């Protein structure tokens, strides 16, 4: 039994219309996604805007209603009734994309970080304060600043407050939904390196949702590529970056910027080539609705959505 297993997850949002407001269709935000994460590893979920990667993460933690499918965390089914899974949910926490709106502006840092502690652990006021100070120290913030309000911190510091809140209950799995995309590049590196540090320290497992392949390459062990709610390719970091099989992945990998100006010509040539291939074979890789096919194994770790005819 894996650590986190997602089987054929579907999240559909109804489209209502007509008289009587009946359901006339559905947006298939996530349409049959399966993957599993091993303990202590970082799993990257990559895709363009609207590909359903955030919805997948939110469905796992219970913020989006799951239409069908199964989410198994340490052998327990998270899709069953909420009351039964309450103590399991403590082990899954989330880091949000926007550090500005994910902290309540009317609350002090103490109240923000202590919120999960107040829900699950019965601590006295003094214990709670010490614990919050300890957490702030752990994320590299001044423990003296517990009485400040969130707007008194910079973006990077606020994201650290968000991380302190997420690790307060000593969770096992953290879903990081584009944790650095709202931060500027210099701060991104700080936060990412820090996330790796606490991963080692607390033996955390990350589900890392991002659209930035450079960051994913830096952070993740295994990677899944999503397109229009479906997986197009899944594999280890080496599989994806060194041996991309699906035309969509190839195009993504080719789009990673290269700093070395000497490679510029080469890079441009490669991109043109991939672009040609993409236009030429688009219909071969996607069905007539423009969606990806089922995943098929091409090696033990590497799965690609290729058509039946191969």
């Amino acid at each position, binding site marked *: 039994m894996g650590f986190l297993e997602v089987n054929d997850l579907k999240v559909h949002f109804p489209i209502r219309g007509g008289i009587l407001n009946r359901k006339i269709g559905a947006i298939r935000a996530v349409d049959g996604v399966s993957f599993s994460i091993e303990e202590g590893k970082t799993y990257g979920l990559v895709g363009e805007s609207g590909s359903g990667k955030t919805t997948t993460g939110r469905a796992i*933690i*219970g*913020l989006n209603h799951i239409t069908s499918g199964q989410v198994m965390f340490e052998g327990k089914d998270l899709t069953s009734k909420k009351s039964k899974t*309450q103590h399991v*949910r*403590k082990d*899954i*926490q*989330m880091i*949000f*994309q*926007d550090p500005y*709106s*994910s*902290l*309540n*502006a*009317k*609350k002090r840092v103490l109240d923000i970080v202590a*919120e*999960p502690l107040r*829900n*699950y652990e019965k601590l006295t006021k003094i214990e709670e304060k010490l614990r919050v100070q300890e957490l702030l120290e752990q994320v*590299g*913030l*001044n423990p*003296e*600043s517990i009485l400040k*309000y969130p*707007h*008194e911190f910079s973006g*990077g*510091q606020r994201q650290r407050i*968000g991380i302190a*809140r997420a690790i307060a209950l000593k969770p096992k799995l953290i879903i990081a939904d584009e944790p650095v995309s709202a931060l500027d590049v210099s701060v991104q590196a*700080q936060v990412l390196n*820090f996330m790796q*540090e606490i991963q080692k320290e607390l033996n955390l497992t990350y589900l890392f949702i991002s659209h930035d392949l450079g960051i994913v390459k830096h952070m993740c062990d295994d990677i899944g590529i999503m397109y229009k709610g479906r997986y197009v390719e899944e594999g280890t970091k080496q599989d994806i970056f060194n041996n991309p099989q699906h035309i969509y992945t190839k195009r993504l990998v080719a789009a990673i910027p290269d700093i070395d100006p000497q490679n510029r010509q080469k890079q441009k040539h490669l991109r043109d080539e991939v672009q040609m291939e993409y236009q030429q074979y688009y219909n071969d890789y996607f069905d007539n609705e423009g969606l990806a096919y089922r995943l098929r194994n091409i090696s033990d770790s590497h799965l690609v959505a290729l058509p039946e005819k191969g």
Partner: protein
Amino acid sequence: MANAHVDTAQTDTEVKTPSTWSIIWREIVRDKVALISLIFLVGTTGFVYGISMFLEQSEIVTVDLFAINEAPSEQFWLGTDYGGRDIFGQLIIGTRNSLSIGILVTLMTGVIGVVYGLVSGYYGGTVDNIMMRIVDFFLILPFLMIVIVFVAIVPKYSIWSFSLIMTAFLWMGIARLIRSKALQERELDYAQASKTLGTSNFKIMFTQVLPNLSSLIIVTMTLNLAANIGLESGLSFLGFGFPETTPSLGTLLGYARNPQTLEFHWWVWVPAAVLIFLLMLAVRNVGEALKRATDARQRRG
């Protein structure tokens, strides 16, 4: 970690950002009209409640046939009405009653409206739909007609019963306002984050979302207070408010329905009219200053 030093280098001696109350206070001090209004309001309220503790309502409303319609004098500072009752005493007690009703109605409609709107907006969907249809039902009821029927039915009629009947028909506005704001707030990340941290819906509503609506609530309730004082006076003027044995600003004004009083006994109704005007204006001035204080772009202070 290199950046840890940067963070810890910040000291606690830096200027604290002002709290909501200090922003509001600064805005009122900066706006002289609002400041004068606030002083007037606090002064009037304190004076009226203070003095009325030493006045006997039953004594003031006792008819004295030897002192009918007397002009202002040493004995009766603001004269007497057609029953020989002292206008000044009635004005004090009347202002107290009118203010009490205004404040009670504002608080009760506020509490009901905020809770109702918050629950409706936070849950959304079907719950919201059902709750808003109930609001619509209350909105189409003929308010004035029902109050008139109520006055006819209820024999003994106190500040509390009058406040309750007004509350029953005045909580919908604030409920709708709070609901629309709660619909926006529940989608924000901080509310979603609270959910992932295991906080119950009830707690999210009242400890996370409610503080973010506080400025809106303060402003709306202040402006409602002005409207409610006016409404009470209006109803009493029409004769559907308090009886003459329970003076209010509206009943004093109501004497002006008699053409004799209107023309020759101005001291009966002018003070009450002026006071209603000043009270409503003052509350409104303070409310406008509060409204500006909650919006950083409009602030003067």
